[in-house]
């Protein structure tokens, strides 16, 4: 070991203060905060990379069940495409229901991933560091599923490519006035840029994994790492590119769900042509998305033994975020539904009464309890937010509540056009139920497999954060202190 002509020791070797009271404070800070609890990078990497290769029984069981459901999805889709859309419960009044509900829901939960990795990066929220990649993976798989949903609900899905603008012999072209065209450009932009954004963030970690792996994993990581070494030029370019992506993908994120909401707002369907749909959908997306990220975090923490990385502070912060989003969502929901209550426009009154006292009332009240009552009653408490089972329970309820909300907007409201003769009720049938289960399974399957293939915790961001954070003493108290390096 060469002599170190250095002024300070590496950040993971920082000694505790001599005073026992101060040392106790520092110990407590290190226990609570990941970025204060620096360990040697080799150890941090091992904590992430080690569990990836250890595939237990639960993993294989999950793989079989989820894979089976995913296969069911594909088979039922093929059956539906062959037989015709009539095998679903759709009818001449309600022409959009199950798949569009899924479409809106999955694009919605994709937003949280982008928000956490891009917006929180821009705002310099350091606690996002271990969560961001899991959230991004949720975005990627949710968007992939959402991309297939409009295909599943098309009558002649084999001609889907007619919606793409490409030169052809028949001189045909799609219609840029259609909200579906806007959907395609927005979701394509969002999906590809989310994937590139995630890939950029993963590169340095794949390089770490490349050095530590062997066998087929080493070959895979060598290819995926693109030869990343970590020179200062490479880091500078990465930082600039991540900045461009962070600043770029935030407006895209807002625009995507707004464009999705315009699929509904551009129609004359009562209950749909509301100008508040744009921001209302975006906030709803973030709300359900943050809940989904909490669930994913809890599952990954358990499955990959990531207790070192995902601590109480992260769940606490996400719980607070969920509560704030709950307030925001209620604000928009109240705005939207105050109107029909107040002014009694006939068709809107019919729909509103359907929710409050009609056949849709059980669904509506379940949604209110799951989205408003329970989060507001529990998430203010730090104890609930810090308890992972409780927080996951609330998050699951939020998922159910938001799914019901989308269902009420799409499937129930659509059955009530202006002419009463055409009123109808949508009854889900087996094909769409199986397909819905299948796509949920696919998202979970995708994240499960991905978490075993690539490091699901950004090692370099955690180590960088630990490098830049320290403690500061004021009087007899010691506080965690952050360094703003940029």
């Amino acid at each position, binding site marked *: 070991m060469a002599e170190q002509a250095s002024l300070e020791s590496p950040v993971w070797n920082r000694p505790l203060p001599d005073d026992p009271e101060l040392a106790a404070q520092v110990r407590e800070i290190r226990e609570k905060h990941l970025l204060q609890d620096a360990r040697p990078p080799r150890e941090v990497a091992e904590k992430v990379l080690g569990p990836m290769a250890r595939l237990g029984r639960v993993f294989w069981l999950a793989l079989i069940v989820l894979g089976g459901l995913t296969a069911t999805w594909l088979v039922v889709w093929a059956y539906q495409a062959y037989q015709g859309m009539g095998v679903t419960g759709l009818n*001449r*009044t309600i022409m959009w229901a199950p798949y569009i509900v899924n479409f809106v829901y999955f694009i919605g939960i994709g937003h949280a991933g982008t928000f956490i990795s891009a917006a929180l990066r821009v705002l310099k929220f350091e606690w996002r560091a271990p969560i961001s990649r899991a959230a991004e993976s949720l975005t990627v798989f949710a968007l992939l599923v959402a991309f297939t949903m409009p295909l599943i609900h*098309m*009558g002649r899905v084999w001609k889907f490519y007619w919606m793409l603008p490409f030169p052809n012999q028949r001189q*045909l072209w799609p219609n840029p006035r259609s909200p579906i065209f806007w959907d395609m450009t927005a979701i394509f932009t969002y999906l590809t840029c989310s994937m590139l954004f995630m890939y950029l963030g993963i590169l340095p970690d794949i390089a770490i994994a490349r050095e530590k792996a062997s066998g087929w994993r080493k070959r895979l990581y060598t290819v995926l790492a693109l030869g990343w070494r970590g020179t200062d030029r490479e880091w500078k370019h990465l930082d600039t590119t991540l900045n461009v992506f962070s600043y770029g993908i935030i407006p895209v994120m807002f625009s995507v769900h707004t464009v999705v909401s315009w699929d509904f707002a551009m129609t004359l369907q009562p209950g749909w042509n509301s100008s508040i749909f744009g921001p209302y959908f975006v906030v709803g997306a973030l709300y359900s998305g943050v809940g989904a990220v909490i669930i994913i975090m809890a599952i990954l923490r358990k499955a990959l033994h990531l207790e070192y990385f995902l601590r109480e502070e992260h769940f606490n912060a996400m719980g607070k975020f969920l509560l704030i989003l709950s307030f925001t969502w209620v604000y928009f929901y109240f705005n939207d539904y105050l109107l029909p209550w107040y002014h009694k426009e006939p068709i809107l009154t019919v729909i509103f009464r359907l929710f409050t006292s009609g056949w849709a009332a059980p669904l509506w009240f379940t949604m209110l309890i799951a989205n408003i009552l329970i989060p507001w009653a529990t998430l203010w408490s730090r104890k609930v937010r810090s308890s992972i089972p409780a927080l996951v329970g609330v998050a699951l309820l939020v998922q159910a509540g938001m799914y019901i909300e989308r269902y009420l907007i799409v499937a129930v409201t659509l059955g009530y056009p202006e*002419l009463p003769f055409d009123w109808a009720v949508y009854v889900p049938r087996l094909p769409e139920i199986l397909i819905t289960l299948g796509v949920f399974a696919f998202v979970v399957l995708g994240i499960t497999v991905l978490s075993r293939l690539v490091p699901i915790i950004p090692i370099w961001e955690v180590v960088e954060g630990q490098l830049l954070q320290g403690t500061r003493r004021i009087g007899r108290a010691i506080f965690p202190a952050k360094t703003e390096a940029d």
Partner: protein
Amino acid sequence: MSELKTRLLDRGQSAAAAPKTELPSHKWTMLIDLDKCTGCNACVVACHVENNVPIRSEREVIRGHGQHWIRIERYWEGEGDAQRATFLPMLCQQCSNAPCEPVCPVYASVHSERENLNLQVYNRCVGTRFCGNNCPYRARQFNWFAPQFEGPITEMLNPDVTVRSGGVMEKCTFCVQRIRRVEEDALVEGRPLRDGEMVPACAQTCPTSAIVFGDRSDPQSQVAQRLGGQREFRVLEHLGTAPNVYYLKAGGSDGGAS
């Protein structure tokens, strides 16, 4: 050389002598007198036969997969002994500001400005059903399954009208195949269309002549003369769709159908 000269010099005269191939513009309008409508559904049957609309089973119709380009909407009003039914024949209103048109991602639903009709291009439709949602009258019908025409029923099919495959939207076209035929006949004979020459299948069949069809840009036509009365109304006019189907209120102080 002289042949070329002849061809070039003759060009102008030949063009003048060539028959006119431009078709005139129309404002096709349908007028439905609700006082005369008895709800007999003959128009529905006639439309099925004329336009190769598939006949769905009773079970399918109950499930909501019925396909009727024109349907008689029946509303019950009143209670007990005073209860009566009012009939509203509902079909594609051929809106001038059709909400179904701009939302189609593949331009399968476009407007003909010359004829003021809403056109549906079957072989371009990919089946996203956005147009069906956006129609406030729910006039658009979707082929939930591929239509099955077997045996002698194929003899009934109108060869002038496409038989649609599954997954394609369709709707009333004001019997555009008949419009084409009468227009071409008139063009060949070098005369304008006469009022009453173009009759869609529903108007042709209606036993009480409740359905009247014509070109309201022709002031001599029956529709033009019957429009503008006190009984006239259009359905869901406030949505700004500018429909081209006018209804005449049924008699009675309650105003009849909505």
